[in-house]
C-alpha cells in the first residue's frame, strides 16, 4: 500500500512543474492471449468463461467487448484423482458465452478440482482446491462517520474475525446487496495473515466497486458504505495461494492504472500453457446475511 501512496504523492509534489501530453505509440503486434476465468465453491456448481485479449486501439466499445467471448472451447473438470472428465456446457447470454455444469456437480470442501480448457489447438490447465472455510465471528452495523456525504442514510459494516493458526492463510471478501445477482468486490478484495496470524481482529467490510466502473459520476464519498435498509450478503472465502497471487497481482495492476509512476506489474496466471492469462478459483466460503435496520 505504501508504495502506491508514495507514488501518488510523488505525482502530487511534481504538480508545480510537470506536464502531460497525449502521444502515439506503435504497439507491438502479438497474438492476443486467451483469458480464462473460473469459479467453484462449496455447494455451488462451476462457472467458467473464456475470452480473447484485444490489441490496443483508441476506443473499445461494449460490442467489441462482447465479441471477445470464445464459445468453441472444450472445458472439462476432474475431481481429486478421478480420471473421468466432466464436460461443461456452453450457454449463451446475448453475445456473451459461459461454461456451466449440467450434471449437478457441486463444490465440496476439501476437494481438488482440475480444469482443462482446449481451444483452437491450445490446452490450458489449472488446479484449485476448496479449502475449509474460516467463518467470521460476526458482522456488526456501525454508523458512517459524520463527514460522509449522506452519512444519515449510510452505515459501515465491521467484521470480527479470529484468524486461525498457522501462518499462511489467504482470504477473499465479496459482498452482494438486496436483489443483486452477482457478488462484487472492493478495489482490494484479498487478505493474508502475514501480520495478523492467529489474532482476533476487526476490519471494515468494504462494499463493491462496480458502481464506480459503471458510472463515472458516482459519489466516491459513498464508496464502501451500505445504505440503511439494505440486506447485505458477506461472502468470506478461504482461498489457495495461486489464486491469492492472481488477485494480488491483478489488483495491484488495476491500482496502477492512471498511475504513471507505478512499476510494471505482471499478473500471475494460475494456468499452465503459454498465451493464457486467467484464474481458476476455489472458494471455501461462508455467507453472513446482514439486515441493516431502516433507522
Amino acid at each position: 500500500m505504501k508504495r502506491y501512496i508514495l507514488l501518488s504523492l510523488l505525482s502530487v509534489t511534481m504538480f508545480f512543474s510537470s506536464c502531460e501530453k497525449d502521444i502515439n505509440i506503435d504497439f507491438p503486434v502479438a497474438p492476443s492471449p486467451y483469458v480464462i476465468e473460473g469459479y467453484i465453491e462449496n455447494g455451488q456448481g462451476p462457472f467458467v468463461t473464456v475470452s480473447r485479449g484485444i490489441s490496443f486501439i483508441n476506443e473499445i466499445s461494449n460490442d467489441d467487448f462482447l465479441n471477445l467471448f470464445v464459445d468453441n472451447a472444450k472445458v472439462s473438470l476432474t475431481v481429486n484423482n478421478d480420471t473421468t472428465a466432466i464436460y461443461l456446457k456452453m450457454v449463451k447470454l446475448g453475445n456473451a458465452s459461459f461454461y456451466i455444469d449440467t450434471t449437478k456437480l457441486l463444490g465440496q470442501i476439501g476437494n481438488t478440482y482440475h480444469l482443462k480448457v482446449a481451444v483452437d489447438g491450445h490446452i490450458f490447465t489449472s488446479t484449485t482446491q476448496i479449502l475449509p472455510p474460516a467463518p467470521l465471528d460476526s458482522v456488526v452495523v456501525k454508523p458512517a462517520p459524520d463527514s460522509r456525504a449522506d452519512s444519515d442514510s449510510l452505515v459501515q459494516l465491521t467484521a470480527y474475525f479470529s484468524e486461525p493458526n498457522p501462518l499462511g492463510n489467504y482470504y477473499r471478501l465479496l459482498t452482494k446487496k438486496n436483489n443483486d445477482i452477482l457478488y462484487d468486490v472492493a478495489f482490494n478484495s484479498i487478505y493474508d495473515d502475514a501480520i495478523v496470524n492467529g489474532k482476533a481482529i476487526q476490519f471494515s467490510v468494504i462494499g463493491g466497486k462496480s458502481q464506480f466502473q459503471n458510472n463515472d459520476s458516482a459519489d466516491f464519498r459513498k464508496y464502501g458504505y451500505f445504505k440503511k435498509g439494505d440486506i447485505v450478503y458477506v461472502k468470506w472465502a478461504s482461498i489457495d495461494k495461486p489464486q491469492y497471487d492472481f488477485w494480488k497481482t491483478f489488483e495491484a495492476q488495476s491500482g496502477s492504472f492512471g498511475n504513471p509512476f507505478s512499476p510494471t506489474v505482471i499478473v500471475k496466471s494460475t494456468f499452465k500453457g503459454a498465451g493464457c492469462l486467467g484464474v481458476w478459483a476455489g472458494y471455501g466460503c461462508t455467507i453472513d446475511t446482514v439486515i441493516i435496520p431502516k433507522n
Partner: protein
Amino acid sequence: MKNKILFLLALLLSPTFLFAQQKFSVSGYIKDAFSGETLIGSTVIVRELGKGINSNEYGYYSITLPTGKYQIAASFLGYKPIVDTIDLTKNVKRNFYLKSNSIVSREAVVLAEKAENNFKSTQMGTQTLQMEKVKTLPVILGEVDILKTLQLLPGVQSSGEGNSGFYVRGGGPDQNLVLLDEATVYNSGHLFGFFSVFNSDAINSVTLIKGGMPAEYGGRLSSVVNVNMKEGNNQSYHATGGVGLIASRLTLEGPIQKGKSSFMLAARRTYIDALIKPFVSSTSTLSGSGYYFYDLNLKLNYQLSEKDRVFFSGYYGKDQFLFKGERFGIKFPWGNSTTTMRWNHLFNEKLFVNTTALFSDYVFKIGASQSNFDFELFSGVRDYSTKVDFDYFPNIRNQVKFGAAYTFHTFTPTTATGTIGESSISPEKINRQYANEAAAYFSNDFDLTEKIKINAGLRYAFFQQIGPYDRYIQNDVGTISDTISYGDGENIKTYHRLEPRFSIRFQTSKSASIKAAYTVTNQFVNLASLSGSTLPTDLWVPASSVVKPQFCTQYSIGYFRNFKDDQYETSVELYYKDLKNLIEFKENTTGRLSANIENDFTFGIGRSYGAEFFIKKSVGKFNGWIGYTHSYAERTFADLNEGKTFFARYDRRHDGSIVLSYTLNNKWTFGSVFVYGSGAAFNLPTSLVFFSNGTQGLYFENDYRNKYRLSPYHRLDISATYTAKKTDKYESTWNFSIYNVYNHLNQYIVYLDIQGDVLNQGLKVQPKQITVFPFIPSVTWNFKF
C-alpha cells in the same frame, strides 16, 4: 589463484626496499591560506626529479629523498602554486598555505584537479569536483547539486530527469558507495531523489571513482562517491548562505581556537509547503498536507598536537510528508543520519594513520490512522563501524596504503505495528537481520621504471550473517512450509572473498600515457528495488544463505593525453564488466509485506561494456568539458524474460554532455550544459484483457522486459552568475538559471491512460507521456560575510 596473489604481494613489496642511501623526509599539510581548509589531493612536486605525490585526504604529504637541496612545488588547481627551496639535511616539516586564484586574480575554473594527474597517475576512471567551482553551472530550481553535476561526466547516467540518483557504467543504483566523511549514506536523495542530501555549502569536494577502484574501497560494485565536508575556517568567522526558489541555506564557520580548531555548521530547509499553503483552501482535501525536507551538517576539528588531530562530523537529514485525507491521515518521515569521529596521528614523517569510528542510520516510517485503525510501518538499516587506515610514504617512488575495517549491520525489514480496534497487530518480534562485515587491504602505488607506474593492491573481504533470525521456507506455490530459527549470535552464513586490484600506467610521451586496470569487487548489501530508480521505501538486504554477494570483475584500458601545456586534457577509456549474483524481484512481485523478502528474489548475471570519451579544459576564462559514452548493459536471469537476455533499465546507447563556463569579467560568469541521451528502456503490454464483470487487465508477452525505448533525451541549460558586490568582508552573488531552455518535452514516463467502462459506454485508451521539468527559470541569491 594462490600463485597470482603471491606474485602480486611480491610485486607490491619489492620496490619499497630498493634504496639504502642516507635519506630525509619533507612532510606537512597543504591548506587554503584563507580558511585553513584542507586541499584534498593537492600535488607536491620535486622539481629536480620531475616527480611528485598527491597529498592524502587530510592534506598530508611526505616525501623522502636523499640528502640535498630541492625545489619543492605545492600546487592545487585554482590556487597559486608555492615553490620553496628546501635543504634536506634532516627531516623537514613544511606546511603549504595556498591562495585561491579567485583572491589572487579572479579566474574561474571548473575543475580543481592538477591537470598532469590526467596522464601521470595510475588512477583511471576518476574525477574530482570542487564544490566552489561547480556553483557557476546552471542548476534546476536554484539548488546546486553535486550528484547531478557528476552525471555530466562520461560513464555516469542519471536515473531519471532531474534525479540525483545515478548509474555508473551499467551498474545498478545500489552499486554506488556514497560516503560522507567516510560514513555510508544509504539513501542519497531527498524528495524521491530530486535533490541530493548534500548541501552544497557544506561540501568541500567530491571524488567519483568508476573504475580501477583502489584497495581501500570495497563493498560496492560500480563506483565510490567520496564526499568531503568542509572543515570550517580556522582563521576567522564567516557566514555563507543562499535564498532559492524552494530552499534556503545558512552555513556558519569559524575558529574555536584560532589556527588550531574550527567548526562548520550548515543547515538547509525547503519551503514548498509554506509556498503552497496560501493556494490551498482550508476546506480542501489537501489542507494540512505538506512536504518538506531539511539537512544539518556539523563538523568540528581540533589539532591536539603537531602529530594529532581529531575531527567530528555529523549529518542529519529528514524528509517529511503529511497527508490529511477525510478518511485517514498519513505521516511519513524518512532520513539518514551519519556520525564520523576521526583521529589523525603521525607516527613519524613517513607514517600517517587515521582511525575512524562511524555510525550510519537510515530510517523510513509511514504512519496512518483512521477511526478504529492505527498503523505504522517502518524499515531501515543501521551501521556501527570502525576502521583504521595507514598512509606510508617510504620514499618518493612508493606510496603505500594499508588498513582494516569492521562494520556491524542491522537491517530492519518492513515491519508493521499498530492496532485495529482493540486488537494489536504488532509482531511478537521483528525479524531483523544482523551481519558482521570486515575487510583488510594493502596497496602500493609505485614507479616500476621511469615510464611504468603501478598501483597494486589486495583486499580481503569478510561477511557473516548472524542470528537471531527466522528463515521461512516456502513450498513450490509460495506457502510457508517450515521455519528455521537461528539463535542469538549464531553463524548463519559466512563469506570470504579476495579482491585483487591492479592498475598500470605506461607513459608513452611527455604528455600521454596508456593505462589499464583490473578490479574485482564484491557487494554484500543490496537494495531491493521494484522501480529501477531508488525510492525511500526500498529495502537494504544483506547477503545471506539465499542471497549470494554480488560480484564484479572490471577490465578497463585507456589512452590519456594532454595538449597545449596541460591546458586540455583528453582521454578515451574502454571498459568491460562481468557481473554475477545480480538481484531482481521475481516476475510477479508486487512489493507486499514479506516475512523474508529474499523469498521474492531471483538471481542472474550481467555484463556491461562501453567506451568513454572526454575532453576537458580546466584553466582559463573559458573552460569546461565534453563527454560522450557509448555503452551496453545486459542482464540474463533464468526466471525472468523466459531466460532471454534483456537490456537493463539503465542500458544507454548514447550519452553525452557539453559543459561550458565563461568568465566575462569580475561581475559576470556564464555557464551552459547540454545533455543528450538515448531513451530509457521500458515495458509495453501487447493486449488488453477483460474479465466477465468488465474489469480490465494488461497482458505482457513473456519476454516483455525493457524492449521499448522512450524517445531520446536532450536539453540545454544556461546560467549567469552576477557578483553584485565583492569585498574581503562581504560577497553577494545572484545566480540566474534556465533549465531546459528550448522546452523540450522529455519523456519521463510513458503510460496508458484507460478511461470509461466496457460494460456500458465503452473504454478509451490513450498513451500519454509525462514531462517532469519543462522550461524552468530560477534565481538564487547567495551571500558570504
